[in-house]
C-alpha cells in the first residue's frame, strides 16, 4: 500500500509534472521564477494551498455533492470553496502566525485564481470516480506531489533564468519568447522521466 502512495507521489512530481507536462500554473511559472527567493515562497504557498483545498473539497464532493446528484456543480463549488479558504487562511495567518504570513502571505491572493490549484482538485475528483482505490489519502499524496513538482520546476527554472540574464539574445526573442524556449528545453529533460515510476514499482 505504501508503494501505491509512493508511486502516486513520484508520478505527480516527475512524470506528470504539473507545470512541464500538464501545463497547469504557467502564469506563476513564468511570472515569478526570476528570483530564487520569490520562486521558493510561491511554491511553498502553492503546496500549502493545494493540500488544504484537497483536504476540504474531497469530503464536500464525496459526502455532499455526489450523494445528492450535484456533481455538475463541482466547478462552481470548488472555486468558491478555494477562494473562501484562501481568504480565511490569509486572515488567520496574519493574526496568529505573523512569521509564516510574512513568508507566504503575499502569494496567497494570487493563488485563488491559479489553475494548478483548481486543476489538482478537479483531477483528484475525476480519478476518484474512475479508480476505486483512489481515495482521500491518494488524493492528498497526488496534491502534495503536484505541489512539490511545481516547486521543483520553479526552482530549476529560476536557476536557468539567472544564467540567461547576461546572455546576448536576438532582439525579437528577448523577454518572454526566450523564456518559453528555455522552458521547452527544461521540459525535454522531464520527458526523460517517462516510465521511470512504472519501472521502479512495476
Amino acid at each position, binding site marked *: 500500500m505504501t508503494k501505491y502512495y509512493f508511486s502516486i507521489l513520484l508520478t505527480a512530481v516527475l512524470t506528470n509534472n504539473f507545470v*512541464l*507536462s*500538464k*501545463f*497547469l*500554473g*504557467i*502564469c506563476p511559472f*513564468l*511570472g*515569478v521564477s*526570476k*528570483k530564487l527567493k*520569490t520562486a521558493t515562497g510561491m511554491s511553498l504557498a502553492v503546496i500549502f494551498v493545494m493540500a488544504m483545498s484537497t483536504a476540504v473539497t474531497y469530503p464536500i464532493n464525496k459526502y455532499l455533492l455526489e450523494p445528492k446528484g450535484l456533481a*455538475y*456543480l*463541482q*466547478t*462552481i463549488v470548488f*472555486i*468558491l470553496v478555494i*477562494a473562501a479558504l484562501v481568504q480565511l487562511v490569509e486572515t488567520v495567518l496574519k493574526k496568529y502566525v505573523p512569521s509564516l504570513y510574512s513568508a507566504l502571505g*503575499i*502569494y496567497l*491572493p*494570487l493563488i*485563488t*485564481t*491559479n*489553475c494548478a490549484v*483548481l*486543476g489538482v482538485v*478537479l*483531477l483528484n475528483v*475525476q480519478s476518484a470516480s474512475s479508480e476505486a482505490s483512489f481515495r482521500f489519502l491518494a488524493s492528498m499524496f497526488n496534491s502534495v506531489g503536484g505541489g512539490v513538482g511545481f516547486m521543483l520546476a520553479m526552482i530549476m527554472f529560476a536557476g536557468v533564468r539567472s544564467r540567461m540574464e547576461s546572455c546576448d539574445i536576438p*532582439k*525579437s*526573442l*528577448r*523577454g*518572454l*519568447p*526566450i*523564456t*518559453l*524556449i528555455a*522552458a*521547452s*528545453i527544461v*521540459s*525535454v529533460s*522531464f*520527458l526523460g522521466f517517462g516510465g521511470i515510476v512504472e519501472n521502479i514499482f512495476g
Partner: protein
Amino acid sequence: MAEKKSLFNEFSKGLIAENPVLRLVLGTCPTLAVSTSMVNAIGMGLSASIVLVCSNIAISMLRRVIPSKVRIPAYIVVIASFVTIVQMLVKAFVPALDSALGVFLPLIVVNCIILGRAEAFAGKNSVAASAADGLGMGAGFTAALLCMATVREFLGNGTLFSGADSLLSLFGITSFTGIEIFSRLPEFLKIEPILIFILAPGGFFMFGILMALANKIAEGKGKPGAELHGCESCPMSGSCSLIKDGEADGIGARRSGAAATADMTGGGAQ
C-alpha cells in the same frame, strides 16, 4: 454611425492589436495545453468565447448592482455558472471534445482572459460594447490557438483537422475526418512526423517562436514587444504585493524610465 464604428473597434482590437494570447499574454495554460490539434483548438476557442461573451454581457448588466468590494467573487460566480453550462452542453453534444479537453474545459473558470476582461472592461462599459469586446477577444484567442495548433499538428502528427468529425457531427457531417498529409507523400519524400511538437516541449517552443514573430511584427509598427503583463492585468493585481514591490516580472518593461530604475534600486536594496 459613430456608435457602430466604435463597437467595431471594440471587436477588432481583440483580434490583432490587443490579441489576448500574443499581446496581452493571458490564458497561457490552455493555449499550451490544447493546441496539440486544430479541432481541440477550435473547440476550446469556441467554448471560451461563448463563456467570455455571456459573462461579459451579464457582468456589464450587473455592473451597477455589484458592490466594488465583492466584485471579484461575484465575477467568479457568474463565470463559473456559464462554464458549467458550456461544460454540460459539450458533454451532451460533443463528448469526444469533452474527453479531449479534459480538465481544461472546467478550468476556463480561472482563465485569466475571462476574469481579466470582466475586471478591465465589462465592469466599466455598456452591454453592447462589452459583448463586442468579448466577441473580439474570443476570436483573437481562437485565432492564436489555431495558429499554434496548425503548426503543431502538421509537424507533430502530419495531419490537418484530424478528428474533425467529432465537431462536424453537430451539423450532421461525419464523412470528413481530417486531411492526412505526411502519410500521403510519395515514397522518396517519406518522413515521420516530429512527435515532440505535440508533446509538452513542442508547446513551449512553438509558443516562444510565435511570440517572437508577433514581437517582430509589432516592432515593425513601432510598438513595444509583448512582455509578461500577466501579473499586471491579473485581476488580483490590486491586492498583490509582488507587484507593489516590483518583484514580479515584466513590470519594469511597462513602466518607463525612472520608475523602472526605481524598481531596480528597490530590488538591489533587498
